[in-house]
């Protein structure tokens, strides 16, 4: 395995400018993860708000209807493997699109998947805010949406952020399966190089190290953000 390590490094990195492939692959991985998180965050927040408000206004038929739709979505997405979802997305739903769009398809599929998990995170974050806060806001004459946006959500973010950061990290790692739909992400590039050099050690370990360092960077950034958000807790 370690025979001629310099030679292996040369073959896996320098020859034919192969180092560029890792960067290109990482670029795709990042684009998919970030794009999916943005979609997931928007989708998840909307669903969480529907569910919270449907729970507060049990008599509203329209909200009840939306709530049922959300439940179906959550059940289907959380009850099936990501891998199967992305294959269905690529081979059935977006089958008409050419391979040029596979990154976009990956972003959409991961975004829709992530939305289900984010919805749960945001919903429990909102419901963890003391009910008295809602009553205090409403008793001052603020509307439901003013109370939500000025009082409840800013507090909910503190509950949501750690779990959301975790979701981002999970999503970032999970994108490694997009090679199955012909996206040249970091993992795919590593296997591509392996198939040219017939030496797995350098490309696979290197890709693992790249994933690891980015995950560590994200964790570090999140801790900093949490500290800033917690400043009003100090005594």
């Amino acid at each position, binding site marked *: 395995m370690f025979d001629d390590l310099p030679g292996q490094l040369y073959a896996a990195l320098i020859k034919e400018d192969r180092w560029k492939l890792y960067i290109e692959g990482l670029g795709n991985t990042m684009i998919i993860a970030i794009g999916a998180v943005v979609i997931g965050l928007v989708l998840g927040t909307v669903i969480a708000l529907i569910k919270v408000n449907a729970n507060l206004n049990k008599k509203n038929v329209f909200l009840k209807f939306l709530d049922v739709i959300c439940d179906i979505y959550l059940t289907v997405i959380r009850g099936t493997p990501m891998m199967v979802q992305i294959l269905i997305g690529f081979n059935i739903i977006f089958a008409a699109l050419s391979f040029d769009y596979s990154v976009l398809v990956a972003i959409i599929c991961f975004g829709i998947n992530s939305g289900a998990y984010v919805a749960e995170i945001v919903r429990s974050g909102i419901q963890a805010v003391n009910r008295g806060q809602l009553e205090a806001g409403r*008793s*001052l*004459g603020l509307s439901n949406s*003013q109370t939500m946006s000025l009082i409840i959500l800013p507090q909910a973010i503190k509950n949501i952020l750690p779990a959301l950061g975790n979701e981002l990290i999970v999503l970032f790692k999970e994108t490694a399966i997009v090679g199955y739909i012909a996206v040249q992400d970091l993992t795919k590039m590593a296997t591509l190089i392996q198939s040219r050099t017939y030496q797995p050690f350098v490309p696979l370990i290197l890709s693992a190290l790249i994933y690891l360092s980015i995950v560590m960077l994200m964790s570090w950034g999140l801790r900093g953000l949490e500290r800033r958000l917690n400043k009003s807790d100090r005594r």
Partner: protein
Amino acid sequence: MIDVKSVVKHFGDIHALNGVSLHIKKGEKVVIVGPSGCGKSTFLRCLNLLETPTSGEVWFEGECITDPRCNVNKLRMRMGMVFQQFNLFPHKTILQNITLAPVTLKLMTQEEADKRAIELLARIGLSEKADAYPAQLSGGQQQRIAIVRALAMNPDVMLFDEPTSALDPEMVGEVLELMKELADEGMTMVVVTHEMGFAREVATRCLFMADGQVLEDAPPTEFFYRPKNDRLKDFLAKVLV
């Protein structure tokens, strides 16, 4: 000013209010006492529609507020409420807690609201806490800020739901003192409390509630020294020792 007509409130099988009728005039200080779970909070919360009555009507300054067409947000701007648990906004500074609603509701500009908040803080001797966060204040200070936050809206009536029950004993006095000042200035107040001393001293009327009904409604001297209702007599015997 406030007219309550046969208000009933059910939570599923629980009958929290069984037909309460009451007329509260401007400037009155109504104190409500009664055993735990008898519907005091529910009654208070029906006045500003934090709970919607199952049946009956509430009228406020000539307007039927239980009518579905009534704008509840507008109504609540004129009714301040103070909660047992203070419910200050923990992510906002004290000044922001006070100015948030008047500014958001466009009743004042930020400058006007800041000025008013600073005046109110000076009045309760907490000027130096303007930029502190609620968690940095004692319970008594937090509750006084909560009262001031409601006052910043210039309400016509103030509702208090056991404002001193969550406080350490040594902090009860400062909150009651502020409430007394408000009463002396002529504020219309409806207060649910276990503080009998406050009721005797400040109330113009005392109500005794039990089982979701008002069983006695009398001025404090009569209420405490010549109670008519037997359950009130029992109740007073227990709480006045």
